[in-house]
């Protein structure tokens, strides 16, 4: 407490209003300010009371104070009168006007009896100029605040900021692919490595590789390959290593991030990745190099899945799936990592179930491709998920002769997935449904028909098929369908219009007000389904753009990259969509992880009282990005005209 004492003219200590200071200090962007600055604010605020229903700010009027709500509630409107936001205790408004010609941009009305603390221009300007966090908070409405939130999260995780090059333990040990397996083995023993990079005979890795030059790397061989492919079958020692090496190699560029290496290993279930710099091998990284960064990425779980010999063995790993999910979230993984890891696990379980099924039923009578649809195909799977799958059979398929086998195989896999926690699809989009167990030629007809003669009703059911990925068997079948879709969809405006309309079915809310979700008409709800009102409509609209620009990508982030390469969206729009998607997804993921940790059944519903102020603000921003993107989608593909274009 400052005491003004008499007889000392230099003593101009002012007194502060302690209630004012204490209250300001509890809310962003004031909560991080030093004591001294808070006191300065508390000494200088003005206070004004507004009765419920009275106008606080009118459009265009001069504004000379930042408005802080001490108590009560305020509605802020767009210039056209639409509700922009509803604010309560601890929120600020008027900042845009303060930064823009000192004129009110968004009018405001008290909807309850409201007490406002007014922070005068001089102090506002000083904080804005000198305090970076404060400036970020008041300046960065919407997209840029979202960007900051997302990049801050990613900066905290070394998997997302470290490059693969840093993990390389040593220069690669290489040999010509013409050496014998015995020479290869002795070189590996001498050099103490478990993987050997094999070069095309005559290739010189010291020489600068130029585009157009023949590839340098021919393949890779590991300890395990020598055991399973050479020793076990009893190959002679002088067998050329090229006969047993993996020539269809999975590699990683040296400037990739560590998490990308992790996802590549997880997806392909490999434990050694050659690192290439412009096609030149610069090293090999192993599972253990990545695990030192992140121990619970699901990499071990995937190899464990592949070792199971029964459905019950797979089922017993279900709790490990949840534990992996929670640990990844707690270690700060982003949604792309979590979604890919969970999809990779789901894919591995499906693959293993197919192998077990074939063991039981014998080899398939005709080639097939097992296809994942929806979130697994997009690499965006979480723990609350049902199974969406289908079978593409070889065109030589004869239902009378072969279908009994594939029905049995599909049933085995579907029941197995259900046992492992992937519930049956309520829409019956599973390979057990004869409609979704068809030869490739029928699948081509399906897609052609969906694209050529779209109807709103049909698209509601078939939209999920436009996220597809082959996960076992003849992957080429699925690739053929991807190509068909990529080539046909972009040319068909009517199809895109219908698909857009389907993508506009679900809309985001406006934001939050106290412990409620606030809808655009001002109505309140107690909770929000963050999938239905956030991530799903966002993936839906990104799918439309991706198909419009002929992309074959399935993952929503990959689709955004493809879209960003075209001029389809304005500058920065793809980045805003990416940030919005990441934030919506990661909040959804975090809340599921909290549910699991608290022993509750995880779901997609979130109650606003469980959101931090940080999450609320950024979710509101993400909702706005989604809402604007939906408006653009409607306009761009003429979705509101019902897709009828003359």
């Amino acid at each position, binding site marked *: 407490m*400052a*005491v*003004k004492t008499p007889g000392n003219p230099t003593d101009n200590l002012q007194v502060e209003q302690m209630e004012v200071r204490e209250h300001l200090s509890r809310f962003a962007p004031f909560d991080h300010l030093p004591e001294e600055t808070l006191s300065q604010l508390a000494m*200088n605020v*003005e*206070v004004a009371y507004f009765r419920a229903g009275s106008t606080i700010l009118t459009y265009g009027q001069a504004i000379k104070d930042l408005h802080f709500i*001490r*108590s009560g509630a305020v509605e802020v409107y767009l210039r056209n009168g639409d509700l922009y936001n509803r604010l309560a205790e601890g929120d600020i408004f008027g900042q845009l006007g303060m930064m823009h010609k000192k004129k009110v941009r968004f009018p405001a009305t008290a909807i309850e009896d409201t007490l406002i603390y007014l922070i005068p221009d001089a102090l506002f300007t000083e904080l804005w100029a000198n305090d970076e966090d404060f400036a970020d908070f008041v300046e960065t409405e919407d997209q840029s605040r979202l960007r900051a939130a997302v990049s801050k999260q990613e900066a905290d995780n070394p998997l997302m900021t470290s490059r693969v090059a840093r993990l390389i333990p040593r220069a690669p040990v290489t040999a010509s692919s013409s050496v014998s397996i015995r020479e290869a083995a002795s070189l590996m023993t001498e050099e103490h490595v478990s993987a050997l990079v094999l070069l095309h005979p005559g290739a010189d890795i010291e020489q600068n590789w130029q585009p157009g030059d023949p590839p340098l790397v021919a393949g890779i061989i590991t300890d395990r390959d020598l055991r399973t492919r050479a020793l076990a079958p009893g190959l002679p020692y002088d067998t050329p290593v090229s006969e047993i090496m993996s020539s269809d190699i999975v590699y990683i560029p040296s400037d990739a991030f560590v998490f990308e290496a992790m996802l590549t290993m997880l997806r392909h279930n490999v434990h050694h990745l050659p690192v290439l710099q412009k096609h030149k091998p610069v090293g090999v990284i192993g599972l253990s190099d990545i695990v030192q960064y992140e121990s619970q990425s699901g990499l071990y779980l995937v190899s464990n899945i592949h070792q199971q010999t029964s459905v019950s063995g797979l089922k017993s790993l279900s709790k490990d799936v949840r534990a992996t999910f929670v640990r990844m979230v707690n270690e700060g993984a982003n949604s792309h990592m979590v979604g890919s890891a969970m999809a990779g696990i789901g894919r591995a379980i499906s693959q293993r179930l197919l192998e077990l099924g074939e063991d039981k039923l014998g080899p398939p009578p005709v080639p097939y491709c097992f296809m994942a649809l929806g979130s697994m195909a997009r690499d965006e799977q979480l723990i609350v998920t049902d199974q969406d799958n289908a079978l593409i059979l070889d065109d030589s398929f004869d239902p009378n002769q072969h279908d009994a086998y594939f029905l049995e195989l599909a049933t085995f896999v579907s029941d197995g997935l259900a046992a492992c926690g992937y519930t049956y699809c309520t829409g019956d989009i599973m390979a057990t449904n004869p409609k979704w167990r068809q030869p490739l030629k029928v699948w081509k007809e399906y897609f052609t028909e969906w694209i050529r003669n779209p109807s709103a009703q049909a698209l509601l059911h078939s939209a999920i098929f436009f996220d597809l990925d082959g996960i076992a068997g003849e992957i080429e079948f699925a690739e053929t369908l991807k190509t068909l879709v990529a080539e046909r969809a972009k040319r068909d405006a009517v199809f895109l219009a219908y698909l857009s309309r389907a993508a506009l079915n679900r809309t985001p809310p406006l934001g939050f007000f106290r412990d409620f979700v606030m809808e655009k008409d001002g109505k309140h709800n107690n909770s929000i389904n963050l999938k239905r009102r956030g991530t799903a409509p966002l993936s839906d609209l990104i799918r439309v753009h991706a198909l419009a620009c002929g992309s074959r990508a399935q993952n929503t982030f990959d689709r955004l990259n493809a879209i960003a390469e075209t001029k389809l969206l304005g500058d920065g729009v793809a980045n805003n969509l990416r940030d919005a998607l990441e934030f919506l997804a990661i909040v959804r993921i975090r809340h599921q992880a909290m549910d699991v940790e608290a022993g509750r059944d995880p779901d997609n519903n979130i109650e606003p009282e469980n959101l931090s102020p940080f999450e609320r603000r950024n979710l509101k921003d993400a909702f706005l990005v989604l809402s604007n993107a939906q408006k653009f989608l409607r306009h761009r593909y003429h979705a509101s005209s019902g897709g009828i274009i003359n």
Partner: protein
Amino acid sequence: MSQNTPDNAASGTPEWPTRFAELAQSAQDTRLIRYYSAGCVSGDTPIGDTSMVSLDFETTGLDPTFHSIVSIGLVPFDAQRIRCRESRHWIVRPVLPLHRESVTFHGITHSEISAAPDLREILDEVLEALAGKIVVVHYRSIERQFLDQALRWRLNEGIEFPVIDTMALEARLHRNKRPGLLDWVRKRKPVSIRLADSRTRYGLPYYAPHHALTDALATAELLQAQLQYHYSPETPLRELWY
């Protein structure tokens, strides 16, 4: 807008501008002469145009003849804005020793008291802050009588000034009739017109009580709320002051 007839506002209330002119003549102490000479606005002044200052004392007890002022808080304001920048707060040394209970009550310590000046030493500043403004208090007896007594004791002459009393304004709303038989039967309690309870009725936040500066702010906010709910900005001062 007001439906309430100002009860004793008209009756016992002096014609303040005239009274100030008389007192400027009759006062002896130069500080008081200066205060009265700053004048008092006319009772016809609309409340929306009135400069006010919310004033609160913390005291060692409730009887101005036995107890002393311990601290003074004031905040200048008007119907639109309360100006914390011009807030003032003083701790003053009471004439009588501080009771142990009231120490805990006000949160003022003995060392603060012993270092504090006598009211006489800061009187100039206090009166300067009040000059030309209408004083607003919650429960007028305390501030008016304590200041009057304190000056009589020190200067051998008292002080008179008009006040707007937010508690009296609440009483006009809720105490304008005696409790009837029905109220007695229903055991209806009279509405509390204490500062904190009155504030709650206008949706004003809870503030920790018993700090002179906070209470002065709380009172200013209450008056703004009362004015918005019950009085038009054109309401003449004479309907509100005492």
